[in-house]
């Protein structure tokens, strides 16, 4: 079981352009008139959680109850890959997720900006704790495929008889770019997450790092691949995921 809330384990950055940050700040000020988090209910939550004695304890109990419901929702929704997870175990996980989320929220209470409802802000902590716990449980005891032999999955993509020559060339170029342009660490992270579908939270636990740090590595690796492919004359704009 995790001993520290997952939400305290994040660090690392991905470079975001100054233009994006400035746009973000402008958009935020434009929205200042409609911040739902400055509603009466959200202010009451903050006031009660910041108070002393009985009122604070009552607020913490009420908040934990909300977090528990959210954690149960997430566990019910995502525990299909874990059929061996019995009802009692699932409830234990929900209770632990609610406890961890409550700890994280109380530690970050001053970070609440009031841009959304307080309860929405709080729910995301419980949902995250439950989701990460489930992802790690699903991979418990399984070996993490990090190595080059799994690059064969890229070759599999090129085996469809209907596949055009253009895409086959692109796949071959990506394989070459992975070998030539990436550092060994970048190669392992890219292969594990994007080809072998290892959840980033599972990988971060095994490598004793954070989701943010791993994503930065993935981001840098992808940027190198794109640069390499563009230099080879490939038009890769069409390979954009439509989700979410």
């Amino acid at each position, binding site marked *: 079981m995790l001993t520290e809330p997952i*939400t305290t384990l994040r660090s690392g950055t991905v470079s975001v352009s100054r233009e994006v940050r400035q746009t973000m700040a402008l958009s935020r000020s434009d929205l200042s008139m409609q911040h739902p988090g400055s509603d009466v209910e959200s202010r009451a939550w903050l006031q009660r959680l910041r108070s002393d004695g009985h009122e604070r304890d009552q607020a913490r109990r009420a908040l934990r109850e909300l977090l528990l419901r959210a954690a149960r929702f997430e566990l019910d929704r995502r525990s299909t890959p874990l059929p061996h997870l019995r009802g009692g175990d699932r409830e234990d996980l929900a209770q632990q997720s609610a406890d961890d989320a409550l700890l994280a929220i109380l530690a970050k209470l001053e970070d609440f900006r009031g841009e959304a409802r307080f309860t929405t802000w709080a729910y995301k902590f419980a949902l995250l704790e439950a989701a990460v716990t489930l992802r790690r449980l699903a991979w418990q005891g399984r070996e993490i495929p990090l190595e080059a032999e799994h690059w064969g999955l890229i070759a599999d993509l090129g085996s469809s008889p209907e*596949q055009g020559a253009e895409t086959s060339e692109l796949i071959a170029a990506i394989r070459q770019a992975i070998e030539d342009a990436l550092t060994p660490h970048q190669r392992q992270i890219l292969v594990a997450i994007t080809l072998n579908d290892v959840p980033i939270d599972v990988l971060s636990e095994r490598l004793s790092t954070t989701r943010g740090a791993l994503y930065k590595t993935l981001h840098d690796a992808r940027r190198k691949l794109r640069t390499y492919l563009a230099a080879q004359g490939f038009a890769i704009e069409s390979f954009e995921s439509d989700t979410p």
Partner: protein
Amino acid sequence: MTEPHDNARLARVLGPSEPEVTCEQCFDDLDLYVELELAGANAEAAVPGLRAHLRGCPACSEDHDSLCAYLEEQET
């Protein structure tokens, strides 16, 4: 032509091309983003780069879907 599932895998390898926020920024702004989305407002204008990040980060995308689903369930 490239098969749809091949496109999805290649998109996963190559990631989004446009600027994106970090996982930390995504988590910080997810509540605002989802409330605006569910209200039919322009969430991307409020948090530029978050939508691109959701396309690139499977874990943050799942967190986003979970918060949407839970808030929608609360409304019913």
